[in-house]
C-alpha cells in the first residue's frame, strides 16, 4: 500500500516551495528585526543631536534659548519631523506647566497649532509614498485609514500645550467617528478646563449613560469633568436632577472631586461653595458635600487603606475614612439635628462627624440627640460613631468618676440597649459598678446567646455563674 496522494513529485515540489518561502520569510523577519534596531538606534541619536542643535530641550526652552534663528531653522524642517522632535517635550508639559507656555508659543510660531486644528477637522495634506517614507511615522500620513491616529495625537497635543482657543474644535472632536479621537479630545478639554466647554462634556456624560454607541466611558468623562474648577459646579446641577440615577451619581462624584481639588488649591473658594452645597435640596448633593467637608485641612493625606480593610462596618468601608473633620464652622450646629433625621445613612454619618467636630459643645448636643431620639437605628449609628471616635472610654470614665450627668445617662442607655459589642466594652470597664445593676435589671430584655457572650468578658457575671452552675438563664441573674 502506498500513500494515497495524487502525485508524489507534485507534493514534494509543493512542500519544497513552502519550505523555501517559510525559510526565506524567517530570514527576512530576522533581518528586518536587526535592521529596525539599527535604524532605531541611529534615528534616536539623530533626534537627540537635532534637539540639542535646535535648543529643543526643556532646560534650554525654559531659559529662553530657542532664538529667532533657531525658530527659522526649525521652520525649514518638514512638519512631521518637527512634530517628532517636539513629541518628547510635549509629554513633559504635564509635569512642567511653564514649559507648556513656551511650547505653545513655539508651536504657534511654527504653524503647528494650525496644522493640528485642521487635522482634527479632517483637513489633511496629501502625502506621496516617497514623502511618507522620508518622514517619521509616514504610514500614518499616507494611509487615510490611519488618519484617526493623527487626529487623536493632534487633539492630545493641543491639550498638552494648553492652547485655550482650540476648545471649540476639541469640543467638536467629541463627536468624531473614531473613539480614540473622542478620548484624546476629552483629555485635552480636561487639561484646558475651559468653562465654556463644560456643557458639551455634560451632554457626553448623559450620552455615555443612555446611548450604548457612545465611544466615551463614564469614568473618562467623570475624570475629565472633575478637573474643572469648583466655580463651574453649578453647571452640573441639572445633571444632579437627571432622571437617570447613574447620571445623578456621576455628577455628585464629580462635584466631590472638584471640591477636593479646590480644597487643595484654595480653601476660601471651598468654604464659600460648600456652605451652599451642604444644605442643598438634593439628597445626593448633601451627602457628597458633607463627605467633602470631612476632607477639610487634610485632603492631602493618603487614605489609610488599612482602615478600610480592618473595619468590618459597612459605612466605614464605603465612605473610606480618609480624615476627621477639622473645620466645624462650615456647619452650623443648629442645622445638624435636622440632618440626623435624613433617610440617607451616609448623610447622618457625616452629620454625626460634624457634631463631634464642634468639640465639647457638639458632643453634648449629640448626647442630647441620642437620648431624645426614638429611632433605634440612629441610636446604634451614634454609638458606632462614638466608638469610632474613641469616645466610649471617655464616657465610661465619667461613670467611674460619677461626673457628667449627661454622659452617665448615655452610658446607661447604651447598657440598656444591649448593643453587644459596645456593651462588652462597657462590661470590662464597669466591673463592680452600679451599671452592672442597671444591666441586671434589664437582662430579661436580652437573649441567652447575648448573655453567654457577655459571660465571656465580664468576670462579675462569670463569678455569679460559678456560684450557681445551673444558672443559664437571665432571671436568677436579674434577681
Amino acid at each position: 500500500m502506498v500513500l494515497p496522494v495524487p502525485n508524489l513529485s507534485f507534493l514534494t515540489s509543493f512542500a519544497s516551495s513552502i519550505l523555501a518561502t517559510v525559510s526565506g520569510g524567517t530570514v527576512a523577519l530576522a533581518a528586518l528585526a536587526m535592521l529596525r534596531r539599527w535604524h532605531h538606534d541611529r534615528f534616536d541619536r539623530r533626534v537627540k543631536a537635532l534637539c540639542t542643535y535646535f535648543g529643543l530641550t526643556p532646560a534650554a526652552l525654559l531659559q529662553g534659548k530657542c532664538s529667532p534663528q533657531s525658530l527659522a531653522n526649525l521652520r525649514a524642517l518638514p512638519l512631521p519631523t518637527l512634530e517628532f522632535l517636539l513629541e518628547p517635550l510635549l509629554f513633559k508639559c504635564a509635569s512642567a506647566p511653564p514649559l507648556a507656555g513656551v511650547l505653545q508659543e513655539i508651536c504657534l510660531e511654527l504653524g503647528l497649532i494650525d496644522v493640528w486644528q485642521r487635522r482634527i477637522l479632517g483637513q489633511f495634506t496629501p502625502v506621496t509614498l516617497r514623502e511618507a517614507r522620508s518622514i517619521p511615522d509616514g504610514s500614518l500620513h499616507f494611509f487615510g485609514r490611519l488618519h484617526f491616529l493623527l487626529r487623536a495625537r493632534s487633539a492630545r497635543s493641543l491639550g498638552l500645550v494648553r492652547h485655550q482657543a482650540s476648545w471649540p474644535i476639541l469640543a467638536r472632536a467629541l463627536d468624531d467617528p473614531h473613539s480614540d479621537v473622542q478620548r484624546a479630545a476629552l483629555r485635552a478639554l480636561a487639561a484646558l478646563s475651559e468653562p465654556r466647554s463644560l456643557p458639551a462634556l455634560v451632554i457626553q456624560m448623559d450620552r455615555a449613560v443612555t446611548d450604548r454607541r457612545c465611544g466615551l466611558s463614564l469614568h473618562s468623562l467623570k475624570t475629565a469633568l472633575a478637573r474643572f474648577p469648583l466655580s463651574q459646579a453649578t453647571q452640573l446641577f441639572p445633571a444632579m436632577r437627571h432622571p437617570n440615577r447613574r447620571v445623578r451619581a456621576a455628577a455628585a462624584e464629580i462635584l466631590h472631586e472638584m471640591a477636593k481639588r479646590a480644597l487643595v488649591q484654595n480653601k476660601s473658594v471651598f468654604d464659600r461653595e460648600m456652605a451652599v452645597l451642604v444644605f442643598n435640596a438634593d439628597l445626593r448633593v448633601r451627602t457628597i458635600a458633607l463627605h467633602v467637608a470631612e476632607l477639610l485641612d487634610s485632603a492631602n493625606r493618603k487614605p489609610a487603606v488599612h482602615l478600610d480593610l480592618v473595619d468590618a462596618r459597612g459605612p466605614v468601608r464605603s465612605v473610606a475614612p480618609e480624615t476627621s473633620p477639622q473645620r466645624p464652622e462650615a456647619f452650623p450646629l443648629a442645622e445638624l439635628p435636622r440632618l440626623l433625621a435624613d433617610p440617607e445613612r451616609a448623610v447622618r454619618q457625616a452629620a454625626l462627624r460634624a457634631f463631634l467636630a464642634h468639640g465639647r459643645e457638639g458632643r453634648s448636643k449629640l448626647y442630647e440627640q441620642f437620648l431624645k431620639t426614638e429611632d433605634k437605628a440612629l441610636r446604634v449609628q451614634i454609638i458606632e460613631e462614638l466608638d469610632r471616635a474613641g469616645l466610649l472610654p471617655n464616657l465610661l470614665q465619667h461613670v467611674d468618676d460619677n461626673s457628667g450627668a449627661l454622659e452617665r445617662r448615655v452610658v446607661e442607655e447604651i447598657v440598656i440597649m444591649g448593643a453587644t459589642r459596645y456593651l462588652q466594652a462597657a462590661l470590662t470597664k464597669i466591673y463592680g459598678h452600679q451599671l452592672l445593676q442597671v444591666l441586671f435589671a434589664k437582662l430579661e430584655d436580652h437573649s441567652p446567646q447575648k448573655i453567654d457572650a457577655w459571660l465571656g468578658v465580664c468576670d462579675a457575671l462569670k463569678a455569679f455563674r460559678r456560684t450557681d452552675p445551673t444558672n443559664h438563664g437571665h432571671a436568677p441573674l436579674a434577681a
Partner: protein
Amino acid sequence: MDMWRPYFDLALVFFNLVILSYFVLGNGVYTALMVISVRAVWFHSRRQAYQGLTDLRESSLTPAVTIIVPAWNEERIIVETVRSALGADYPQHAVIVVDDGSTDSTLKRLLTAFMLAPTSPGYHPLLPTSPVRNFYFSPRFPNLLVVHKQRGGKPDALNTGINLCRSPYFCCLDADCILERDSLLRLMEPILSSPREIIVSGGVVRIINGSTGSNGQVVKLGLPRTFIERFQVVEYLRSFLTGRNGWSLVGGTVIVSGALALFQHKAVVEVGGFSADTVTEDMDLVITLRERAARDNIGVGFSFTSDPVCWTECPSTYTMLSRQRRRWQLGLCQCLRKHRGMLLRPRYGVVGMLSLPFHLYIEGLGTLVEFLGYLLVPLSFLGGFISPALLTLFILLGLAYGGFLSVGAVLLEEMTYRRYPRSKDLLVLLAYAMLENVGYRQLILFFRVQGILKFLVGSHRWEKVMHDGQSLTSGPAELTPAAAHGSAGK
C-alpha cells in the same frame, strides 16, 4: 500477521493525514493570530502617545485596587515581591499577602522586613476558605496586610484575599513576580476607558532571569545565561505578544495569566471565586466568567494588553521546568473537561466555537498527535509510505515554520516595546527563536505528554516550582514607607 497488515497500513496513512491536518490547522491559526497581533500591538504602541495614564494617576476617582499575593514557601523572593507591589504607581492600592501555611520562613521574613505586628480586622468571609490564623499589619506600611492561614492551596489563598478585599477590583500577583511600577495603571486603563464593563484585564509576564533587580524593581535588563532559560524568553514572547493578544482581539481569551491579572471583585464573588477543581485556577476562572456572561447574557468584556508587565523567574533546571509544564498541561486538560459543555456551542460565541475547540485540538490532543507523530512518521518512512524526500521536507517544514513564528514574535517585540536594549541581546533572541524547535520543543512536548498522562490517571497534585530568587535579591534593599505609598505625591 499479514492479515492485519492492510489495516495497520491504513491506520498509518490515516494518522499521517491527522498529523498533516494538525500541522496545517495549528500553524494556520498561529499565523493568523500573529498577523492579528502585529496589527493590534502596532496600534496599541501608537495609541500610547495619547493614553491617559497621567489622568488616572492623578484622579481620586480612579477605583482602588487590592493586590492579592498568595504565597507558599516563597521565602527567597517574597519580600521583593511585596516591595514591588507596595511601590506600584497607583493612586489607591492595598496589598494583601496571604501566607498559605508556609513551612519555611516566608512569614518570618515578611514580619521582619515590614515590621508587622498582629492585628484583628473584621473578617467576614464571602467565600469559604480554610481557617485564618492571624493577621499582621504595620503602621509604617498602612496599605499592607499579611494574612497567615492554614494550608488550603493557591485558589484558597486567593479566595481569602478576595474575602478581605474592599476595593471594586483586585489584582492577582504571584509571589515569585515583580510588578512593574505602572502595571496596575496600565491594567486599569482599558477598564476605565472602555464604555463597556470590563471584568478581567490581563497583562504580560516576562522573564527576569539574567536581569538585575533592586528594591522591588528591575534595574538592568539582560538575557539569562543558560539556553533553557533563553528558550523560555522566546517562548514567553511568542505566547504573550502573539497568542494571547490575538485571542483577545477576536474575543476568544480563555487564558489570562494568574501571575498578573486584574479582576472585578463583584463578578468573581458571584461565580464563587477561584475553584480548586483544576490546577490552573486562573484559566478556570476566566472560562467560568465567560460561561456565566454568555449564559446570563451579560455584556461584559475581557481585556488583554501587552504593556502591563510583571517579571517572573522562569525555571532554570529541567526538573523545575518539567514540573511547571506538567502542571500547565494537566490544568488545561482539567479545564477543558470541566467546561466541555461550552465546546462547539454557538451560544458561547468565539470561545465556544473557536477558542476552546482550538485549545482542545491543538493544545490538548495536538500534544499527543505530535508526540505520536515523532514515532509514527519514521515508521511510515520505514514502511515505505513516505518517500525520504517528503519526510525530510516535512520535518524541515515543521521546524522552519516554528522558527518563523518565533522570529515573528521577536520582531514584534522589536517593533513595539524593545525591552532588551543591547543589539547583542536581539541577535541572541533571534538565534534562539530559530533554534527553539530543535530539541527544546521536543523536550517541552515530552513534559506535556507527562501532564496528559497525569490527567488520565486522575492526578490532581500541584507541583511546586522552586525559584532561587537570585535575580531579585541584589542591590540595596530598604523600601521606605514613602515609596510604598507609590504615587502619593504625583
